[in-house]
């Protein structure tokens, strides 16, 4: 299989401009600027079937086409590099090892949508990634790849990097916008959607790092080439970040459609210590857990949605037979209670309540009724709030109980 996003990861000094150029870098943006109209670029990306790699899996070309062509106010691109979903660490590698691939993706996306300013919002803890991207941007300015008349063409683009300050919620796209604008990072009410009025009230595209990193190859090789990889409607490869109880955790670029069994047992060498698998979380912590019986589910957007979970950010967490699901559930709810911005009632109060209940059960102080209480509280938290953090706590909580109820019942009085 041909690597697309991670093709440069193993090169020496992969993060340097000269390395990137030697590998044919920045040819795609030159192609766009010299022989493609912005609409052609969008069309090519639509043809590729590329779907967002951040969590929701929304078709990228369609997202770009939602932004009005004519706008009286500046349009913006915000790159979501606030990789905060527990179990997810794949964008970090792109940022640290191949920043120019991201920058070229940003240039193409900006050209396609008519954007003159892009921001890369990088998770605050990613200090090295911040420095690397910052330096890469500097290299581009020095070479005339950014700023006025980039690559000698009549097109202007500025890219800025912005460090987050340690809030998971700033990875939610409108929370990210608020934070970029200098305010408290909390999601905005929609409508208006960012494509209409986002950053600084301008039409805004928000794309994940990995998503944009696919774009140069799509332009170079064509949308059809990309759509032939993976499965129909789930085209291309993606970076899977595998953690938990596996022999070989890490980031792997694999075709969409690969099953969990293949990923865990063939690619990652099986469960650590030869133990049995109890279950796995397929797409970052907010994806509902799946059991060992569901190992043959393909890890693509549609198959996982059909199975009641989600592909999310591609962070696969393997859970071995000796792990305690109530403990994992408690730890999961703790995370969301800690990260809720607290503006919506259900999320602010619900995440803490669920975390209290899970902890109580795990510590052996729970009662039988608490199990059903969690389910009911979670049902009151779903689909009720401004953003989906509340759902992100409720969905996995419900799955933990529904799929491993016996473990909870064994702990309560």
């Amino acid at each position, binding site marked *: 299989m041909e690597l697309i996003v991670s093709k440069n990861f193993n090169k020496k000094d992969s993060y340097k401009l000269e390395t990137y150029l030697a590998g044919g870098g920045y040819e795609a943006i030159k192609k766009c600027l010299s022989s493609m109209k912005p609409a052609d670029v969008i069309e090519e990306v639509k043809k590729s079937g590329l779907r967002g790699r951040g969590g929701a899996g929304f078709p990228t070309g369609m997202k770009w086409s939602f932004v009005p062509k004519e706008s009286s106010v500046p349009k913006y691109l915000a790159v979501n590099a606030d990789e905060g979903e527990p179990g997810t660490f794949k964008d970090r590698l792109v940022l640290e090892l191949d920043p120019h691939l991201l920058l070229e993706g940003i240039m193409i996306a900006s050209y396609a949508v008519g954007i003159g300013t892009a921001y890369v919002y990088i998770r605050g803890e990613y200090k090295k990634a911040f420095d690397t991207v910052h330096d890469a941007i500097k290299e581009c300015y020095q070479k005339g790849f950014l700023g006025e008349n980039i690559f000698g063409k009549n097109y202007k683009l500025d890219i800025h990097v912005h460090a987050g300050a340690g*809030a998971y919620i700033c990875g939610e796209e409108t929370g990210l916008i608020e934070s970029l604008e200098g305010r*408290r990072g909390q999601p905005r*009410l929609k409508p208006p959607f960012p494509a209409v009025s986002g950053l600084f009230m301008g039409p805004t595209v928000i794309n994940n790092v990995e998503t944009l990193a696919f774009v140069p190859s799509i332009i170079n090789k064509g949308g059809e080439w990309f759509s032939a990889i993976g499965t129909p409607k789930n085209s291309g490869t993606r970076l899977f970040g595998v953690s938990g109880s596996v022999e070989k955790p890490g980031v792997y670029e694999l075709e969409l459609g690969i099953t969990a069994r293949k990923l865990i047992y063939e690619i990652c060498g099986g469960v650590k210590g030869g133990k049995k698998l109890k279950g796995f979380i397929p797409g970052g912590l907010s994806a509902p857990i799946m059991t060992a019986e569901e190992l043959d589910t393909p890890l693509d957007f549609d198959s996982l949605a059909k199975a009641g979970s989600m592909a999310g950010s591609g962070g696969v967490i393997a859970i071995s037979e000796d792990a305690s699901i109530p403990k994992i559930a408690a730890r999961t709810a703790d995370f969301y*209670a*800690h*990260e*809720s*911005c*607290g*503006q*919506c*009632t*259900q*999320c*602010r*109060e*619900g*995440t*803490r*309540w669920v975390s*209290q*209940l899970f902890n*109580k059960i795990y510590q052996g102080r729970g009662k039988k009724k608490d199990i059903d*209480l969690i389910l009911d509280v979670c049902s*009151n938290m779903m*689909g*009720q*709030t*401004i953003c989906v953090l509340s759902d992100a706590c409720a969905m996995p909580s419900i799955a933990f109980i529904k799929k491993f109820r016996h473990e909870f019942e064994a702990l309560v009085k």
Partner: protein
Amino acid sequence: MPNIIIDGNQIEAMATDTILSAASRAGIEIPHFCYHPELQYAGSCRMCMVEVEKSPKLLTACSTMVSEGMIVRTSTEKVKKARAAVLEFLLINHPLDCPICDKAGECPLQDNYYKYSARESRYEEEKWHKRKKIDLGPTITHDEERCILCTRCVRFMQDIARSPQLVVTRRGSKNTLSTYPGAAFDNPYSLNTVDICPVGALTSKDFRFKCRAWYLKSSRSVCPFCATGCSTVIQHDQNVVHRILPDKNEKINGSFMCDYGRLFRKHISSENRMTAPVIKNNRKDASSITTEESYDKAFTLIGERLASVLKNDGAKQAGILLSPYLSVEEAYIILKTFYEAGSSHIALIDCGEGIDGFNFSDDYLISKDKSPNKTGILELAKKMGINFIKPEALASAAGTKKVRALVFAGPPFGMSEYYEKNKAELDSADFILSLCSHFQAPASRSDAAMPFSLWCESEGHFVNKRNMVRHYCAAVCSPAKDAPDNIQVLCRLASLFKVKMDYRSPVEVYNDIKNQMHLFE
């Protein structure tokens, strides 16, 4: 004009309507906490969620714009469950200390709980313990545990008061309202946040623990603090005014008013309010006897002294100083009396930019002009052909004995300062009479002082700086026992100057002003 259907009712909404605003105009109640009609919506309490046809999720009525053909349902099972859930969530970390909470009885959280939930909590865990009794600033005490984080106060300070002194800090259920570290919440509009707080988190230091809300009776009134003339509600119990709140008036003050107007309350129950007529034997002799008299006796004595001072010259040697706190009715009687009696020494106090050295103003509600009824009194005088002399000119007329008898009419605000400044000259008058609400200068330095009711104890009209005629009614009784009302006191004063006035009520005076002078219609 989008036509929408809410709960089966066909409603013609406005293009700018949200579901909530259209519903409330049609009399359909949609419960809410963070929404306030005069603030930018936040959509965060999630209490106002309703079902909208073709929308898979419930939508917040406060933030969803109406559109043609929209079908809304506000009380389906799904909506009811969501509301009850929001209330359950809100109460899990709320202290439920209603029995000692000032908001009880007028608390939206309490009311909505009884209306839309009223079920026992399933929460058995430890509540968050947050800080209580926080001294937020000179006017407000904050209870973090009661706060439901609706951010109404934050948005009020940002959008209306345009001084973003409040902010939510921390995250999730640890969220709490705060000022900048070490900074006091000291905005002149701070107490509005207490009114709009949907729980008892922000309490007014002036009202805290003074009275239960359900004992309060409300009377609509007008604020006398400045020339803006905000609409107010005076709330009182057992003849004590406990608080003054803004009354909604879209033309003047919206739903808000300034803190100074509210705290003007302190003048009403001040300890030096006059309770009976006071007569001094000899004003200039400090050891002279001061006696409280009945109204009849006092008027007789005042009549005798006036006659002996003015002799045959009548009112020509009498001067009058009007307070801009007088109603147009009161001013009308005084002006007519002195005009007809032939006095040319008529002056009006101007409170200028403020009394007690206060001189704050802004372009929102606090006017530069701190005289509540200067506009009305000037208008009356103009129509009657009376030229006011300057208050300083009145003082020098007393100093040069052109004026032998002086009358100070109205509350002491601004008048006390004037008296202190011109004491030497004013004291040369042979006789000084004060009609005053408070026993302080000039009343305390007069030969005779008659109790005079404040605006909240009488009926009348002010005319604000934008020429709007503002009516107010008595909310409480004057602290003076068996006091005749201001109109009767002024009519009796007129009779001492041989001018016949027989008005029995402010309404009769106002009718004359309207019908004969065609003013303030």
